[in-house]
């Protein structure tokens, strides 16, 4: 491991978030343009119905500008263009042309002088519905031969694909010889697991503001994890040259994957603005937002084989995902689920079969993990079951089989393969066990009383980005412009987004570290857009630090080179004889001939000199593709307390170990881990967007009154949540760093379920583990025990 002392990396600075504590930070919904109209969207009340005619004459008589399906281009697109075109399914238009496929799907929209007037106009829109179908809610119903077709055909790239049995896509992967693997096994375990749909519940509802420009172009502020993809899509949909579509980078009020794709409301806002020839602002209501996106559910049948000593020999994994009314990213999702599964343990022989199915529900998309927490729940639960069957400690079984340093892994799916170069798995399992007092853990049979405590362990990982030695199915590169101002301060222009996890702080620290400029002199301002930045694919796939900052470091080093070359002319020396250092007293970077620090010039002086002698700007622009996507690992030790009277599960204590290589932002790194833990508790214990089977609507009706997420009181107390970092260094990462974001969530649900088993001896296979399910299971267990006691009694008699 390379150990280095950094001046800025790993240090804490507060100034970047000052706008967020003073109310000055602007989000898309805070943008106001003089003369703007307010837009609202008409959402479908039916889950699957033919649209015959939309008449908005009455609404327009009220002064509103309206759009319906005939007002939007016929252009068929996929809102997520992170995958390469030939692997991208296209099934939608801005507004549906023929029929609606889920309740809440936008069918028309109005813009008026006030939001109130827009809503009043919306009520005047008349829709003539044609055939209505019973909603397909369950996956099993949707694939039946007599189920109504949600789509007849869609496009995969430029190729037309017929849809049969509502199967959106499939993905099968074989490694080794599965039959041979199971023949070698001495123990085989198989179970079925289900994880549910949940809602992202990002605090900011999706919003957009669009200004139509005089030259036929548009300027757009919108909730997005990647502004350049929004630019490309809007240009393509509305046939506007890509240099005339300018998308502004603006702070995100949370996202968790819900804005990797261009949001459905963004082109609606644009279509209204183009028609009105005036600025339009569209802020989704919370109800519309819940009906807009959902986390992917997953049904998994997992079978694993092992030798008696715990050596794994084979795994057969079958998964089904129902994706709702649009295919946003099901194909790469199935590939990634395969990767999360295959790269967690050395199964040796693998058979993977994945199927994605359309239903008449809210379209699903990535939500922190992209299938990882879902499949991790199956794998880590089954590893515990196997450990018990083999009578091996769960930690020992994991240590024996994990994929680690030197191993090939393909976390991002079968086309992105690379070798692991840094791994803290062993350290995290061993040190975490000590902190969690694992050795004091007792079996469920020893627990008595109303409140029963249990400890569970689970581990996971996520890739840092999607890069590989060869480009795969996913587009992955980032870029930046870095320039030195005449006073030695620095501006960084990058399209890289920050979800709030500290990506921009990391950018500033990386630049400060390379250029030795004090952190507060590195500006990474919000007033950039697609016109002033080079491409950045998206802040998704836990790539912000590893890929985004990787590119920033690359560009900063080029600027450093320029700077030293120019300084060499001033010092009349060779660049390699000069040293760049941070002089904290002066609050400046300085350059001096090596060994003669007193002969320094400040960066300000050098930049000023370059300016007045017309030498030119010290600035550089470029992009970088990372050729690896190192796994960041996580290990969760969770203690639960199960109330056997109420069925309620509390989490009094947790030990979380993370491996992100060098930690750039310690406070926000910890914050991401704890935040993910909270969302993981929601996923494992509380949340589910349930549907009414007849109406096809959400049982919560889109109201968060009936969709509970964790609050302060569901979390362990401050001193009872211990977060520690492994001591690793990633040689391919910027200053040794890897990601954390999605890894942090991957094994929360699994650890909670394993802890509940340790507390009450009941294994849960379906999330969320609600009090109702716990009580029902306890009752069943009690009856079974009574029955077996009775049988034993019979025999004695």
């Amino acid at each position, binding site marked *: 491991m390379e150990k280095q002392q950094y001046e800025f990396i790993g240090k804490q600075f507060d100034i970047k978030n000052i706008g967020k*504590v003073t109310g000055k930070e602007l989000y898309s919904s805070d943008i106001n343009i003089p003369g703007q109209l307010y837009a609202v969207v008409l959402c479908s009340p039916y889950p699957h119905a033919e649209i015959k005619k939309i008449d908005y004459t009455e609404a327009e008589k009220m002064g509103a500008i309206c759009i319906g399906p005939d007002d939007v281009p016929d252009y068929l697109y996929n809102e997520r263009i992170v995958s390469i075109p030939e692997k991208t399914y296209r099934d939608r238009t801005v507004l549906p042309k023929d029929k609606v496929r889920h309740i809440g799907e936008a069918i028309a929209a109005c813009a008026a002088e006030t939001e109130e007037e827009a809503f009043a106009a919306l009520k005047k829109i008349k829709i003539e519905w044609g055939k209505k179908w019973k909603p397909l809610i369950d996956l099993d119903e949707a694939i039946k031969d007599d189920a109504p077709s949600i789509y007849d055909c869609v496009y995969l790239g430029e190729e037309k694909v017929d849809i049969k049995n509502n199967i959106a896509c499939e993905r099968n992967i074989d490694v080794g010889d599965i039959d041979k693997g199971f023949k070698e096994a001495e123990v085989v375990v198989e179970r079925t697991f289900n994880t549910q749909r949940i809602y992202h*519940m990002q605090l*900011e509802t999706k919003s957009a503001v669009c200004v139509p420009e005089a030259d036929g172009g548009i300027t757009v502020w919108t909730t997005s994890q990647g502004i350049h993809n929004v630019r490309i899509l809007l240009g393509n949909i509305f046939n506007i040259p890509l240099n005339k579509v300018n998308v502004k980078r603006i702070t995100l009020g*949370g996202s968790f994957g819900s804005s990797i794709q261009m949001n459905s409301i963004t082109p609606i806002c644009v279509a209204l603005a183009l028609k009105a020839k005036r600025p339009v602002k569209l802020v989704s209501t919370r109800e519309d937002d819940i009906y807009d996106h959902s986390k992917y559910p997953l049904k998994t049948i997992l079978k694993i084989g092992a030798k008696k000593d715990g050596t794994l020999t084979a795994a057969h994994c079958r998964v089904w995902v129902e994706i709702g009314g649009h295919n946003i990213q099901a194909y790469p999702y199935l590939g990634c689920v395969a990767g999360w599964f295959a790269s967690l343990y050395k199964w040796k022989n693998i058979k993977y079969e994945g199927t994605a199915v359309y239903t008449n529900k809210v379209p699903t998309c990535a939500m922190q993990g992209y299938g990882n927490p879902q499949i991790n729940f199956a794998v880590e639960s089954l590893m515990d079951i196997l450990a018990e069957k083999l009578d091996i400690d769960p930690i020992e079984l994991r240590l024996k089989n994990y994929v680690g340093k030197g191993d090939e892994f393909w976390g991002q799916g079968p086309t992105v393969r690379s070798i692991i170069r840094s791994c803290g798995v062993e350290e995290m399992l061993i040190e975490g066990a000590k902190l969690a007092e694992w050795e004091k853990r007792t079996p469920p049979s020893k627990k008595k009383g109303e409140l029963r405590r249990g400890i569970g362990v689970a581990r996971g990982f996520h890739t840092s980005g999607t890069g590989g030695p060869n480009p795969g199915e996913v587009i992955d590169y980032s870029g930046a412009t870095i320039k030195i101002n005449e006073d030695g301060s620095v501006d960084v222009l990058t399209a890289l987004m920050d979800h709030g996890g500290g990506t921009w702080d990391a950018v500033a620290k990386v630049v400060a570290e390379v250029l030795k400029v004090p952190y507060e002199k590195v500006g990474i301002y919000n007033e950039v857009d697609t016109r002033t930045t080079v491409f950045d694919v998206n802040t998704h796939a836990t790539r912000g630090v590893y890929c985004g900052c990787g590119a920033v470091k690359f560009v900063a080093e080029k600027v450093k080179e320029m700077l030293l070359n120019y300084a060499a002319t001033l010092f009349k020396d060779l660049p390699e004889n000069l040293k760049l250092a941070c002089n904290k007293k002066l609050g400046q970077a300085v350059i001096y001939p090596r060994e003669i620090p007193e002969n320094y010039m400040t960066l300000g002086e050098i930049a000023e000199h370059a300016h007045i002698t017309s030498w030119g700007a010290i600035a550089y622009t470029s992009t970088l593709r990372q050729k690896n996507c190192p796994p960041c690992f996580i290990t969760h030790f969770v203690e639960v307390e199960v109330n056997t009277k109420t069925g309620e599960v509390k989490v009094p204590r947790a030990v979380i170990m993370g491996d992100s290589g060098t930690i750039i932002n310690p406070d926000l790194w910890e*914050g991401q881990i*704890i*935040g993910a833990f909270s969302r993981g508790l929601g996923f494992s214990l509380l949340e589910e967007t349930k549907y009414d089977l007849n109406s096809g609507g959400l049982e919560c009706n889109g109201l968060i009154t009936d969709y509970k997420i964790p609050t302060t009181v569901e979390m362990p107390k401050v001193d009872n949540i211990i977060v520690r970092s492994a001591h690793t260094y990633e040689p391919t990462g910027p200053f040794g760093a890897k990601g954390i974001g999605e890894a942090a969530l991957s094994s929360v649900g699994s650890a909670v379920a394993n802890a509940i088993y340790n507390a009450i001896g009941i294994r849960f296979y379906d999330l969320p583990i609600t009090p109702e399910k716990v009580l029902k299971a306890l009752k069943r267990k009690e009856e079974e025990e009574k029955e077996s006691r009775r049988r034993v009694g019979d025999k004695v008699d």
Partner: protein
Amino acid sequence: MKKIEIEFIVNGKKRRIFVKPNDLLINIIRNDLYLTGSKYGCGIGECGACTVLLDGEPVLSCLTLAVTVNGKEITTIEGLAKGDELHPVQKAFLENGAVQCGFCTPGMILTATALLKENPNATENEIRDYMRGNLCRCTGYVQIVKAIKSCVAEQKSD
């Protein structure tokens, strides 16, 4: 609908504006006064992102009719700092990593200042209980509770 003139103090300044009887305070604050620090998160009083202080008490501006603030004093997040000097709670949020996306932060900070005014020696359990009406999806709350704890005058265990 006939507009009614109301007068109130917002962040220390007297304002007179005309509002409709059904105008919600959040819309007046955000759209008419351009104080966009107060956020719309749900519109039904569930998330706390729109919290403002009304005569020092935290209220949900999405459930408050604008006409009812006539003659009263409102503090929004923009009015909490004294000039360039941040309020101790604002500072504590920055120092404890209690801010991520920042969308819940204004409501969180205002609720926390009300809590500390009511109960300057609040214990951790009292903080957790008081803050449970403000939702945050990013931080997992622990660093928020830690930040508020750091502002408590006299640390007491529960």
